[in-house]
């Protein structure tokens, strides 16, 4: 066997008062995909930052390519052939793909006066090099497109190309799928295959079991900063991985007990919403949710889910149609009136909407209830009560660090999400609109959030659940609407439907119709699905 591409030996990284990595060994074989799996805050990113030269380890050695290394900065790591793609991209939006890839390493002109000054960039050569590089790995990237004009998936590829352009042999990706649509995730994994086929080594950080099993050859699980085991992806199971991650047995399957539905709580009728670009994002959609019912919305992201949710919660005004809560039309009501009427909302974007990043958790716990008793009386906020409330959410939803005075931007994404979900679920709502409630959250907390959702359902709360995780909506929902281009293709019983059928519906096709006809003409199928129920 050849020398491993990367070997970390007994890495310990201490921060004042805390051990982020505790004596971690990690061996990554050349030409393989290695997943680093763990809960939020298990020390995955810290370990990779050590490998990438961002942190100096307290003790332990980093071996790259059989050679012991000591990286002072990412530049040293890049020189040794280690590249890292962060969760949040480091791209310059108004610049082109080529400019971004070559940034800092631009080829210079070799002739003429320009060579003397050494200042002139050879744009033609830069472009050629980028084209050549992206063709070699089968990337479909337009070298002249501006970053702000391309999708997140393409931006990610630009990041990968940037690392490759700098000569990386080992690519570290931090939660690469967090920002991608399911289709883009598949494309990314195909890119992994292509890269490893050409001898590159990939390490990717994730907390999603399924992705680790699909994409990786080997999986190393971190828990509380320790390596708790490296397993072969083909020889493990979701249950085994979940247990390694959490340290106890985890119920992956949700038990949804039968229940009696009450009155119709939320009714949406013939709703039309135009988005910022003037496109009909929601196109004549109708749905209803009864008390004690979870209505799931499944679909590929970007088919009008966001606009539907925002129109129901009062953040966007619909062009036409009605939204009624417990029999009253609330289409003209303000966001605040809807909150006061008992509508809870777990927003899609926790960092933009769900939390004020500069506020601490006490202040954030108040968001949405700032005008309501018992927190506020006669316009005056009772901060003692607000603090108690934040503490109880932190305690119940296992938000770490458990300190209500910490600012929400100092929490990791998963913990931010837990706090938002906790705040919204504990509002004692009549209707809960939950958009991707478990996005970015680790397995143990997903289990807890699912349990809480079902408890609310048992208490008679109506729940509208939007999620891009198919297994989640399928497991939790009593009825499941499949959305495509702004309207429901079909509403199905989630216990009776196969993933294949759902997949077809999500692509806008109705499997019950003559399949050949539908495939040729999927637009009419979508239109006829407008009536929906």
């Amino acid at each position: 066997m050849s020398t491993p591409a990367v070997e970390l030996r007994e890495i310990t990284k201490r921060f004042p008062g805390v051990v982020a990595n505790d004596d971690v060994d990690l061996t990554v074989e050349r030409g393989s995909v290695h997943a680093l799996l763990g809960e939020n805050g298990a020390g995955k990113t810290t370990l990779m930052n050590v490998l990438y030269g961002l942190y100096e380890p307290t003790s332990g050695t980093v071996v790259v390519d059989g050679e012991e290394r000591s990286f002072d900065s990412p530049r040293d790591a890049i020189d040794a052939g280690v590249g890292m793609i962060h969760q949040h991209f480091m791209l310059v939006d108004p610049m082109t793909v080529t400019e971004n890839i070559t940034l800092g390493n631009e080829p210079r002109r070799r002739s003429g006066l320009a060579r003397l000054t050494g200042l002139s960039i050879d744009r033609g050569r830069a472009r050629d090099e980028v084209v050549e590089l992206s063709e070699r790995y089968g990337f479909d990237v337009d070298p002249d497109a501006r970053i702000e004009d391309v999708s997140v998936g393409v931006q990610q590829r630009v990041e990968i190309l940037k690392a490759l352009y700098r000569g990386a042999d080992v690519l570290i990706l931090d939660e690469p799928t967090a920002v991608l649509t399911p289709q883009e995730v598949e494309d990314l994994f195909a890119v992994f295959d292509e890269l490893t086929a050409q001898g590159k080594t990939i390490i990717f950080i994730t907390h999603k079991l399924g992705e680790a099993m699909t994409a990786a050859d080997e999986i190393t699980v971190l828990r509380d900063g320790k390596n708790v085991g490296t397993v072969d992806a083909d020889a493990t199971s979701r249950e085994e991985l979940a247990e390694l991650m959490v340290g106890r047995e985890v119920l992956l399957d949700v038990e949804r007990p039968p229940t009696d539905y009450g009155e119709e709580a939320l009714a949406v009728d013939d709703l039309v919403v135009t988005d910022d670009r003037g496109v009909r994002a929601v196109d004549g959609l109708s749905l209803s949710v009864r008390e004690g019912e979870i209505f799931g919305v499944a679909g590929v992201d970007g088919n009008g889910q966001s606009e539907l949710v925002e129109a129901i919660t009062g953040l966007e005004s619909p062009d036409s149609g009605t939204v009624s809560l417990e029999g009253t039309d609330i289409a003209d009501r303000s966001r605040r009136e809807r909150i006061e009427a008992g509508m809870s909302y777990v927003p899609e974007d926790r960092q933009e909407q769900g939390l004020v990043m500069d506020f601490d958790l006490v202040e954030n716990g108040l968001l949405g209830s700032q005008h309501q008793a018992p927190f506020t009386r006669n316009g005056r906020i009772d901060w003692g009560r607000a603090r108690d409330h934040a503490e109880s959410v932190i305690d119940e939803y296992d938000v770490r660090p458990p300190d209500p005075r910490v600012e929400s931007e100092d929490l990791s994404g998963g913990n931010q999400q837990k706090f938002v979900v906790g705040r919204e679920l504990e509002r004692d709502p009549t209707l809960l609109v939950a958009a991707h409630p478990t996005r970015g959250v680790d397995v143990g907390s997903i289990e807890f959030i699912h349990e809480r959702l079902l408890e609310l359902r048992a208490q008679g709360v109506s729940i509208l659940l939007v999620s891009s995780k198919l297994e989640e909506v399928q497991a939790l929902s009593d009825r499941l609407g499949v959305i495509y281009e702004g309207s429901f293709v079909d509403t199905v019983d989630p216990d009776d439907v196969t993933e294949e059928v759902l997949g077809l519906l999500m692509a806008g096709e109705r499997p019950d119709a003559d399949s050949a006809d539908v495939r040729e003409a999927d637009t009419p199928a979508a239109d006829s699905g407008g009536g929906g129920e």
Partner: protein
Amino acid sequence: MSVGDRVRDRARSALERLVAASATERALISFASLVLAVVIGTVIVLVGGRMTTCETAAFYLGHPRPFGFPQLFRIGFCYDPVLVFDRLFIGALGDPLKRGWGPFTPFTGGPINPFRAGYDPLNAQMANTLKETTILVFTGLSVALAFRAGIFNIGTQGQMLVGGLATAVSVLWVSSLVSGLVGTLALIPLGLLVGALFGGLYGAVPGALKAYADANEVITTIMLNFVATGVILYLVRDVFKDPDSFANQTVPLPDYALFPSLVFPSTSNFSIAALAFAVVCVFALYYLLTRTAYGYDIRTSGIQPAAAEYGGVDAKRTIVTSMSLSGALAGLGGAVYVLMVLGNYQTGVPAYGFDGITVAILAGNNPLGVGFAAFLFGILKSGTLVVQFSTDVPPQLVGVLRGLIILFVAMPEFFRLIGRRVLPAEPDRPGGTAVATDGGREPDPAAHQDAAASGGEDR
């Protein structure tokens, strides 16, 4: 790693450190900046003094002469930097300290009492400083409030002028109905109320334009400043002009309609009652922002509009109300200026509104900070006059010193504002800052665990 990278990394970490600084640290940084500004100002005064010609030097620099060591050389300067800063700061307070600055003189013996014998804190110079402070508190609060709501109100000057004129005219109009102590008790509150009302209305205009017509408030408020100046010039010259005066001013208000000077010399145009009212406004605004639901709405919309909307805050209403409130504070400033300083309304009111922007930035938009920043500004403004009276230093040079001090003291806050914009607001960010803030606010160890373990970005 190249030198450029190192410099950039250092600059970035310094910026991060600054953004994460605690309140105490910020106060210390501001004080250190003040000291640094004085040091640099000293150099400028010396250089300026070297380049000027004068008959006798005001200040000498020589080497020490232990044991009767002969003086080999010494350099004379036309301006004495010690005296300049002494006048600028100490003079502005009416010379509270002994000659030689009390406790700083060693071997004097006896109990240390820094104060000059016979020092009366209620002196005319102190009154002048506090007069400036009072007006600046109002305009500073006005700008700070708008800032907190995420609005850049440059129109404080215009709102102040409108409020001031409205106060003068309305008080003149009803002053014949009452007189004496009753007049004072009725007319001053009335004047303040009218000033606040008109200032508020004039602030509501750009607020409404921003909320309902999406007009940039920076443009509209600047333009409305010109409108206010122009219209008021017309009104004072042609409509409300005092026929017995050559200047563009209204008829003087009766004495009983003005703020009584109370404990300070009556010639000083300063009333402790007005200052007390300003202090009340400081605390009231602090209370409003931190303790009320409306203040919560304002702060949320100021930092993160999308989150505010999510939390049920009516964005448009908040813009209009906070701009009205901001204008009302500016209007109060104008009213106090008329009722305390001018005694009538005249054109050519100093640019307190624009100084208010600096005061607000200096204070980090914190109402309590506005009190201190306005006092510093007040000292500098009134101290400038003292320096001009007591030294040969030209007023332009004093202006430079004043500018230096303001620039230095405001810079850290300014960079904090920039840092908040530049540094990405990501959950990963604390990976860097949590480690960096160790000396500052000692977060829970678990915060490190989480931040360090989950975060850490290349920056």
